[in-house]
């Protein structure tokens, strides 16, 4: 196992862990989006699907724990990398070359990451906690909580916060995807075109659809 620890403690190994955990976390977005798109389809279908998840509790719990572990590794590794990088580069240039040499999304990964974490904590403490209570009390009016309640899109400030967080998620994924496949050494491979298409799906299509849901329920539903 010595070789494994040597690998994950190396500069490339740490980036590799960052890329792998990031990609696995991104996969969850597909499931979550698939579920949420039902909000736009039909109230009853959404309610019965979320209600049905109550019956799959052991499986859902396992996935939740796995996601939490992935998040912890991604965050701790990110903090570790940031501290080391600051140590390697204690004094920057007096003049910052800004976006002349690198994209905004690549230079703001820590800021976008922290905002996404804040959003996630808020999202779990409101919607997720509420849904757990509703599962326990056999209340299946999940749609109303999301679309109309004060902890959902019924609150304009929450809608705006969701949209900002999702734009930052898009920026995080835009650089994250390109960076992950560069770290895996695949950015110059024959799969380059496929990888670029998958990247656009993750940083543009997925956050775009989440934002569409937020805008629809925040500004147009019941108005």
């Amino acid at each position, binding site marked *: 196992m010595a070789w494994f620890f040597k690998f994950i403690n190396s*500069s490339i*190994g740490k980036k590799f862990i960052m890329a792998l955990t990031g990609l696995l976390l991104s996969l969850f977005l597909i499931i979550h989006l698939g579920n949420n798109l039902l909000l736009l389809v039909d109230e009853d279908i959404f309610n019965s699907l979320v209600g049905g998840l109550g019956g799959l509790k052991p499986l859902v719990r396992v996935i939740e724990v796995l996601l939490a572990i992935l998040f912890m590794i991604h965050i701790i590794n990110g903090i570790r990398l940031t501290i080391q990088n600051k140590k*390697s580069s204690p004094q920057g240039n007096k*003049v910052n070359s800004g976006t002349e040499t690198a*994209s905004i999304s*690549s230079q703001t990964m820590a800021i976008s990451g922290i905002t996404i974490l804040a959003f996630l904590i808020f999202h779990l403490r409101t919607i997720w906690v509420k849904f757990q209570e509703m599962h326990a009390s056999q209340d299946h009016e999940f749609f109303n909580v999301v679309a109309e309640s004060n902890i959902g899109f019924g609150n304009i400030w929450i809608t705006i916060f969701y949209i900002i967080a999702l734009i930052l998620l898009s920026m995080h994924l835009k650089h994250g995807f390109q960076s992950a496949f560069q770290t*895996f050494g695949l950015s*110059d491979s024959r799969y380059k075109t496929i990888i670029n298409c998958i990247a656009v799906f993750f940083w543009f299509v997925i956050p775009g659809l989440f934002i569409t849901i937020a805008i629809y329920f925040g500004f147009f539903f019941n108005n």
Partner: protein
Amino acid sequence: MKVTLQVWRQKNRTTTGDFVSYDVENVSGDMSFFEMLDMLNNSLISEGEDPISFDHDCREGICGTCGVSINGRAHGPLKGVTTCQLHMRSFSDGDVLVVEPWRASAFPVIRDLVVDRTSFDKIMEAGGYVSIKTGGTPDANAIPIPKFDAEEAMDSASCIGCGACVASCKNSSAMLFVGAKVSQFALLPQGKVERKERALNMVATMDDEGFGNCSNTGACEVECPKEISIINIARLNREFFKASFN
């Protein structure tokens, strides 16, 4: 034309430096950036002041000795050139130019704009070579090498080790330099024999020397005077990954 320079002045490794402002007049657009500094230094010497120290050697853009940051850009604003090949016509009359040494904890400032790049030498000592008797120049095509591989290896080998990649990286990462060196050998038959040890040892030394971790922002390839592509970093990652798991 006239330019105002804000130059980082630092006596030695242990003292803290600061910016000093100089007005330089009668600058010709055909002067190189260093000829302009030479002119300023001449006047500083005649006034009894310490001239500005900066590294330079060939002044032909091939040795990799020179390098300063000008307005936050490694080797200045022009793409694909070293500082010695940068001419004053790239600037306008009245410009204020902030001139700094490479900023990285692995490149400590020795004096003014001169930094210690021994850390690059140590990385090269860790694997930037082939351990075979190469003898004289071999006959062409004695070892068949695909044209594409030869071209790629030559592209990587054009790295002059100036350190602009480290200076332009917000994390002071040396991955483009190490990637180019590992690639130039890994692509050719003579270098493939030691590719595993080379990738492991050069990365380990890079980490030990205190360079940061690559964030894949791509700033290094933008600033590289030899326009080395970050594909070399992808190849380094592959080489290191394969070497670690085999």
